[in-house]
């Protein structure tokens, strides 16, 4: 009857306590008369039963005019399957006894007592001030709650509220932070979509910087085409170079123990005795002295670097000595001066 208007919709696991307390305070505050359209506080028990977000309830209540007439049956109290018509709250109050049986909220009983305490009020008038506070309180309470509450945002009409809510939620939520822009749909799906799209766009920008000549192009499809072409060309280059390597160096020996032993970032330039060959290394292979000492120096390196299939470049230790006499040896620098040297031996 009377308090039916009080029980605004409330979704599930809210904080019924506060609502109940607020409700009672409101109630005690003195016999206000609420029209059923005005959801008072988000009363815990029945509100929870109605399973509506408070704001939605506000909307509904505001929109609906004739409250008293329509009241749907309350047989589904226990299952919380109320039709989303807050007007049935009128009936709800009558069935407060049933509510007490509900174990949903401990506060239901409290509310029912309060309900019963005000049996006399027949008319529930709108109290805008109350409504305002209720509304804001409701909003605050919502935002204080953790968990995914994006759907709450959906129902709110005003875009400012939308922004506020989402911003508040962004602060609390531990995961995806998406801010709904003004005038955009705040579907959870579209939010996620937007987040993902922005992620992809960010990465696309990154790729664009990598691939030369991609920043001029507009449109994602073409950029992606470019990227794919680039990757393909790089892979082909690797293949080509590996073929060349295979053909050019049938025999390469690296003894990498030393290299690994003295592994560090500094690579030094190698100088070859008498060799005109200069490595076009932006980086150089590094070797330590040890291997150098182990070597047996062979022919002085006045020779050039005639490279044909027979010549087999050998890098490394004396294991390579047995590789034939027609090898040219290019010895690198002097030992003491250059601890890290490139040694190449043909």
């Amino acid at each position, binding site marked *: 009857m009377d308090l039916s208007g009080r029980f605004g919709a409330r979704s599930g696991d809210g904080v019924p306590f506060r609502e109940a307390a607020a409700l009672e305070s409101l109630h005690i505050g003195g016999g206000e008369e609420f029209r059923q359209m005005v959801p008072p506080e988000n009363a815990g028990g029945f509100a929870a039963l109605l399973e509506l977000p408070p704001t939605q309830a506000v909307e509904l209540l505001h929109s609906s005019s004739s409250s008293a007439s329509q009241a749907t049956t309350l047989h589904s109290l226990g299952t919380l399957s109320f039709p989303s018509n807050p007007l049935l709250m009128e009936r709800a109050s009558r069935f407060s006894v049933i509510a007490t049986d509900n174990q949903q909220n401990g506060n239901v009983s409290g509310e029912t007592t309060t309900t019963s305490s005000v049996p006399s009020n027949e008319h529930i008038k709108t109290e805008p001030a109350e409504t305002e506070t209720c509304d804001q309180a409701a909003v605050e309470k919502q935002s204080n709650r953790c968990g995914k509450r994006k759907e709450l945002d959906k129902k709110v009409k005003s875009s400012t509220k939308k922004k506020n809510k989402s911003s508040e939620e962004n602060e609390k939520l531990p995961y995806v932070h998406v801010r709904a822009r003004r005038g955009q749909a705040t579907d959870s799906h579209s939010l996620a979509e937007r987040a993902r799209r922005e992620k992809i766009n960010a990465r696309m920008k990154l790729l664009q910087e990598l691939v030369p000549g991609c920043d001029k192009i507009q449109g994602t499809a073409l950029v992606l085409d470019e990227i794919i072409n680039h990757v393909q060309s790089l892979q082909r280059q690797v293949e080509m170079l590996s073929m060349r390597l295979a053909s050019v160096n049938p025999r390469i020996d*690296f003894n990498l123990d030393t290299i690994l032993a003295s592994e560090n970032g500094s690579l030094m330039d190698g100088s070859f005795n008498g060799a005109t060959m200069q490595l076009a290394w932006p*980086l150089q292979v590094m070797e330590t002295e040890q291997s150098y000492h182990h070597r047996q120096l062979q022919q002085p390196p006045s020779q050039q670097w005639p490279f044909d299939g027979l010549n087999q470049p050998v890098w490394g230790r004396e294991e390579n000595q047995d590789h034939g006499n027609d090898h040219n040896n290019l010895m690198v620098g002097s030992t003491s001066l250059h601890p890290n040297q490139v040694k190449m031996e043909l």
Partner: protein
Amino acid sequence: MASADKPINTDVPEKDVFTLHFLQSLSNLRRQNTFNSPEKTNDRVKKIKKAAYVSMARAAGGTNRLWSRALLRRAAKENSKVVRFPRRKKRVTCLRRRRSNRRDPVEEEEAERLRNLVPGGGGMETSKLMEETAHYIKCLSMQVKVMQCLVDGLAPK
């Protein structure tokens, strides 16, 4: 506006790391006795190529990157070796489930092509795929440079 994720990390190690690994693998290859025979050039080429890729994968961040893991795993399978990776939390199955929502016809076909190109791209979401592609491109270009230098060094004409 979506909040920015922490900056996308596509760091690639220096060239020397690449060289090291590559030369290492090449030397291993060298030790095989049948390596030098002139007839089996194709095999050699393939081996070198594979060595290049594997060494690149190892050099470029080992198992931290999806594409390198996929590469290494593929290579190990061919050699029938068992590769052990540190356990990852996400499973591909979860990704598959979510993938169904994320269709965008224009970019999906491109993404498909990318997936075929980049090793290990099959199980990735589009955004992750792009990240991997960026890193892959960097590593590939590094590898190309290294190999180019090698070839130039050994056959300067």
